Structures are given as structure tokens and as C-alpha cells.
């Protein structure tokens, strides 16, 4: 047991560091915790990814034939760690790299692969994932956005929501219902959609924390050529599972923290604890200690998953436990951070304008929902890890149009 790189990992890490140093002047750098707005910094973010792609640091585990390095998930994680260390923000096309690209690789035509993948890695095109709808969140297969065949095209109408990056994206993978007479999972079809096509409208969606990290996307008679279909008609659910499995790989993480890090809480406590009355300090240390322990428990559990990856394993449903634990820790960390503000904890920002802890507090409720609610994750763990039976369901076999679900 050790926390060191293997010789191969160390050498790869050294390589990454030297690349980041060499190209430092061409890369965007940000302060720790600084929010990066994709719209206002779109050009810098695209440039940054292009530079990194040309240096071979983007899509490392992708096959070489599609522009990757044929590398490992661990190498990918090392790149992520080193980007963080160098204060280079997350790649603008992280959804494309983590989810859309692998789906195109698995289910796209040769033509699609050659047109899209290299450009995706260079952020010549930014991608988004168009799955969730207002009426289908946890129950994704209940989606209603329709695609109707018309000659060589499909005509799409409907609405998607919670679409990260849609406001800067050039393409998206779009899950639609093409046969409402079949059972809900069987009537779906996946497409690549041009986000600049007529009839596509993107509207930013503001969260309770005030930021707008997501979008609503409206489709109004949008025409998609049949050649942009991913997989066969009616096979959309199977294609989507590829995407979702890759999402799990993407969040399987190397002990990266959900929410503010234990180090940031520690620094904050060092700053704020002395201002509290002695009895308040006793109680504040309990809250800080509890949050740190939860956070460290989540972090070291992430290290165990990372070790599994580095031994060649794939992240299983246990990744859901990582998100549950991380969310619980984030809640405790954010709460302890706000409380340490003392009198200023009731305001939206401190006197010097710092709102990081209040923002964290208002972001946590979303963490418990986005990417799988706590309740859905518990179902997954109960059923796939503990082997407990699922709830009885009646919605799987009835034709979708019969309103089996309404």
C-alpha cells in the first residue's frame, strides 16, 4: 500500500508537467475556486484545449485511430490532477470527451467518427448531452421529445433541460422518442444534432445558487439528416447506456472532492476560529472535525476506486457510493464553512465581498440531485451492490402512448 505513483505513472506525470510548463503562456490559468464562465471565456477555453490536444493530453485513453493516445484511465486522471495543480481550468469540452465522444466511437458510423472526433478533442467543436427533460429526470426513459421520419430527415420537437454547455456547444447527442407505440425503453433513438441548426433555441437556466451552469434547449421542427443517427432506430436506450456508463467513468474520480476541499475548510477555520467565543469554538471544532472526517472518508474511498482503475478495473455501481458520500461531506463542509463566518453567515457575502461559502451552501442541494438524486443512487446501490430486489414496476412493458406512466 502506498500513495506514490508507479514508475510509469511518475514518468507520465513528469511528462504532463513539462508540457504544461512549456505551453504555460498559451493556457488559461485561474485562481483556486474561481468560477469560470464558459461563455465569456469561451475563446480562451477553446484555445487552451486545442493546445493541450496538440500536445497529446486530451482524450488520453481514447484509441489512437480516433485521435487518442491509447492510454489508461489513470493517465487521464493524472492529467486532471496536473491541470488542477497548474490552475488550468477544466477542459471546456469535458462532456464531449467524457461522454459524447465515447458514444460516437461505440455507435457512430465511420463517417461520423472521422468528421467529429478529432475536432472534438481540439475543441474546434464543443459538445453537449441532450437527455433530461422537464418531465423525465430520474426516470430518463420517460422522455417525450419526438423525432418523426420525413424523407431522408427526422423532424424533432420537444424540450431538453439541465444541459451543461448547450449555450456554447456546436453539437449535441440527442435522445428522442421515435416510436411512442412501443414500450418506453424500446421507442427511443439517438442522434447527433447540430446546435446551430434552425429551430434550436438555448436558454440559460439559473440555479438557486444564482449561477447559470445549465440550459434549457428547445427543439422546434429541427431537421436532422438520417445520416446523423447514432445506432439503429429504437436502439436509443442501449446507446444512452454507453453514454451513462462513460459518465460513471468520468465521475469515478481519483479522490477528487465534491464541493469545497477539506483543505479550504481548514484554512477558513484557521482564519475564523479565533474570533469566536471559547464555548463557540468548542462547538465549531466539532462541526469542522465532523466535516473533515466525512470529507476525508470520501476522499480516501475515492483513492480505493482509483486504485481499482489503475489495476485495470472498471468503476462499478460502487461509484454511486462515492457520490453519496461526497455529497454528504460537501453538505457538512459547506455548512461548517458558513457557520464559521459568525455574524456574516446570515448575509449573501462577507464584508469584503467573498461569497464562496454562501455559494457552496446554495450549491449543495443541487449536488444531491444532479447526476442522480440521493434516492436514485440508493436504489442503485441497494439493488446492484447489496442485491436487494427492485420496486415492482408496471411502466416497463406498456406502450408509451398508453400513458402507462400517467
Amino acid at each position: 500500500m502506498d500513495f506514490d505513483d508507479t514508475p510509469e505513472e511518475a514518468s507520465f506525470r513528469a511528462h504532463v508537467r513539462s508540457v504544461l510548463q512549456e505551453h504555460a503562456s498559451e493556457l488559461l490559468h485561474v485562481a483556486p475556486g474561481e468560477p469560470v464562465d464558459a461563455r465569456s471565456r469561451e475563446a480562451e477555453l477553446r484555445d487552451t484545449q486545442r493546445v493541450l490536444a496538440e500536445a497529446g493530453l486530451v482524450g488520453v485513453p481514447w484509441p489512437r485511430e480516433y485521435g487518442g493516445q491509447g492510454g489508461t484511465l489513470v493517465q487521464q486522471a493524472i492529467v486532471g490532477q496536473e491541470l488542477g495543480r497548474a490552475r488550468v481550468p477544466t477542459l471546456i469540452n469535458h462532456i464531449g470527451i467524457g461522454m459524447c465522444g465515447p458514444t460516437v466511437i461505440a455507435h457512430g458510423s465511420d463517417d461520423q467518427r472521422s468528421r467529429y472526433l478529432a475536432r472534438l478533442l481540439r475543441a474546434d467543436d464543443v459538445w453537449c448531452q441532450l437527455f433530461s427533460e422537464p418531465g423525465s429526470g430520474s426516470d430518463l426513459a420517460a422522455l417525450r421529445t419526438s423525432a418523426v421520419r420525413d424523407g431522408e430527415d427526422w423532424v424533432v420537437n420537444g424540450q431538453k433541460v439541465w444541459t451543461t454547455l448547450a449555450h456554447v456547444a456546436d453539437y449535441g447527442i440527442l435522445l428522442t422518442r421515435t416510436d411512442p407505440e412501443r414500450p418506453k425503453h424500446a421507442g427511443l433513438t439517438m442522434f447527433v444534432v447540430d446546435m446551430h441548426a434552425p429551430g434550436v433555441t438555448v436558454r440559460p437556466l439559473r440555479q438557486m445558487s444564482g449561477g447559470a451552469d445549465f440550459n434549457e434547449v428547445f427543439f422546434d421542427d429541427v431537421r436532422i439528416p438520417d445520416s446523423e443517427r447514432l445506432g439503429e432506430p429504437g436502439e436509443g436506450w442501449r446507446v444512452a447506456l454507453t453514454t451513462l456508463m462513460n459518465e460513471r467513468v468520468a465521475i469515478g474520480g481519483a479522490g477528487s472532492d465534491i464541493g469545497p476541499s477539506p483543505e479550504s475548510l481548514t484554512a477558513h477555520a484557521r482564519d475564523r476560529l479565533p474570533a469566536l467565543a471559547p464555548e463557540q469554538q468548542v462547538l465549531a471544532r466539532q462541526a469542522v472535525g465532523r466535516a473533515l472526517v466525512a470529507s476525508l472518508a470520501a476522499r480516501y474511498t475515492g483513492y480505493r476506486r482509483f486504485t481499482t482503475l489503475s489495476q485495470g478495473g472498471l468503476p462499478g455501481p460502487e461509484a454511486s457510493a462515492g457520490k453519496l458520500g461526497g455529497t454528504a461531506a460537501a453538505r457538512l463542509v459547506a455548512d461548517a464553512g458558513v457557520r464559521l463566518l459568525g455574524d456574516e453567515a446570515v448575509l449573501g457575502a462577507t464584508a469584503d465581498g467573498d461569497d464562496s461559502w454562501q455559494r457552496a451552501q446554495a450549491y449543495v442541494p443541487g449536488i444531491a440531485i444532479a447526476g442522480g438524486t440521493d434516492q436514485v443512487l440508493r436504489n442503485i446501490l441497494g439493488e446492484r451492490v447489496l442485491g436487494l430486489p427492485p420496486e415492482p414496476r408496471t411502466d416497463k412493458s406498456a406502450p408509451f402512448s398508453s400513458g402507462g406512466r400517467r
Partner: protein
Amino acid sequence: MNFDLSDDQRDAAAGAREFFTGSVPLSAARAALEGDGVPAPGRKALADIGFLGITVPESAGGAGGSVLDLAVVAEQAGAVLAGPSLVTAARAAVLLEGAPDLAAQLADGSAAIAVLDGPVTGSAPSLDAADATLFLGLDGGALVVGEGEVTPGRPMDATRGLASVRMTSRRVLTEDAGELWARARQVGAVVMAAEDLGAADRAVLMGVDYAQQRQAFGRVIGSYQAVKHMLVDAWVGVDQLRSLVWWAAWAADDSPAELPLAAAAAKAYGAEVAERATETVVQVHGGIGFTWEHDAHLYWRRAKVDRLLLGDAAEHLDAVARLAVAGALG
């Protein structure tokens, strides 16, 4: 034993509900948060309908009502996140017992009064201070009144009108006002617990309504135990909080010796119930629940702020334990 509201109090609650529902759109709380508008219904409307003077003596132009009368109205105010808070009216009414002229101005709304927490030379963020022009504070043991320089911070819940104040003029109203100040704060805590009760109750109802309609996997989500039990736990908290609020308000009126413990219990419990209920309503709504456009976060913000005003749960739990050990529980 008759631990229930009177018919008059039920009527007052129904009237208050009608008033607040009609005069306080939730969009006002969101607009105020965006810096575009002030809390509704505002001081004048509250004065006009008589809510600012419920506990002001009739001789000073008030209704001469009880704290319980006020708490019943405050619950309805809390349900729609009304502002300014009846906590301020309740607390000021106690502090102005010896100043009928000022009490009259409180009741008729001609003075925009706020009560300051912390030093008068630079207060903690204090309720309804943002748009107030006359301030009550505790200064070296004396109750003082005067004007001040107001510094509002960036709001977390704009309906609370929080601001720090540096008093620029000071007139002593009552020397040796420590006990009076403490009692006023206890009464304020009771009324805040009543507002939290209203907010938490409404949040649970919002969650229940949504859980009865929203479908997932072929069933309404309220049929799933994960959702159902979360809502039930929140509801049980609300139900029990109502009991503590009534008890504490009754104690303020009829059993002063019980007030300190009862007020602390209600405030501590109210903070936790409101926090749980409002976190629950966000979670039950899923994605839509954490959008800016949805009302859930307005309730959530109220709970996150209120839990820390007039003493956090830790302070009040400590008080409960100390008072009980000192004999307050018999």
C-alpha cells in the same frame, strides 16, 4: 386543559391568511433578492391592517393583544415570507412598554423601527434594519433609541432586511434594561419560531402537492417511501413545532417563569424544523427545485438565515439545558 386556539384566534388566523395571501406574492421575495424591489407587504400595509400593533397596549393605539394572538398572525406571515418581520414589532412592543408615544408610532407605522443586535456602535446584521430610520439598542445596559447609519450587506434572504447599523444619535429610554431586553428577545424568538412554523408548513405542503402529481417509473413519486417518509418526517417536525410555539407564546402571556425555557426550545426547534422542511422541498422537487425560478429556494433561504438570527440552535439548546438544570422544568 385546553391547549388549543380560541375561536377568535382561529378567525384571526384565517383573516391573516387572506391578507398575506392577497398582498404578498412570492415573486416579491425573488425580486428583492435580485435588488429589484422591497419585501412585501411592507411596513405601511402591516401597520394599516394593525399587525404591527397587536401587542401594543390599546392606550398607545395598539390592539392590546397577546403574544399568542401575534404568533398566530406571524405563522401566516411566515407562510408567504412576508416582510418586514413581526418579530421586530413584537420585540419593539416589549421594549417600548415605558414609551407609549414611540409605541404608538410603532403601531401606526409612522416610525420605521428596528431592534439592533450587538453593539450599537456597529451592530450585527439586524432584522428589518435595512429600511428603518429609528433604532432600539442595548448600550451599556441601557435601552437607547436614536438614528443610525445603515450598511446593508448582500442579502441571502432579502425579505429579512438585514443591515448593520452604527447609531449616530442615542437617547436613553430605560436605564438598567437588561431584563427587559432579555424578555423582548425571548418574545422575538417565539415570534420568529412562529414565522418559521408558517414557512416550514408551507414548504411541506408544496412538497406534498408536487409529490402527488409528479410521476416517475409509472407512479407518482409520493408513493415511494423515500419521498413519502422524507415528507412525513418534515411534517411531524412541523406538527411538533406548532405545539412548542403555542406553549412558548402562552408562556409569554400567562407564565413568565416558563418563558425563557419555552422560548429557547421553540427557537431551537423552529430553526431545525424549518431547515429540514425547506431542504426537503428542494429535494422532493428534484431538478426544478433547485432552479432560481422555483419558489423552493426562497423558503430555503429564509430557513438558512433565520436559524442564525436571535441566537443559533446551539445557544438556545445550551439555554434549555442550563435553565432546566437550574430548576425551570420543575
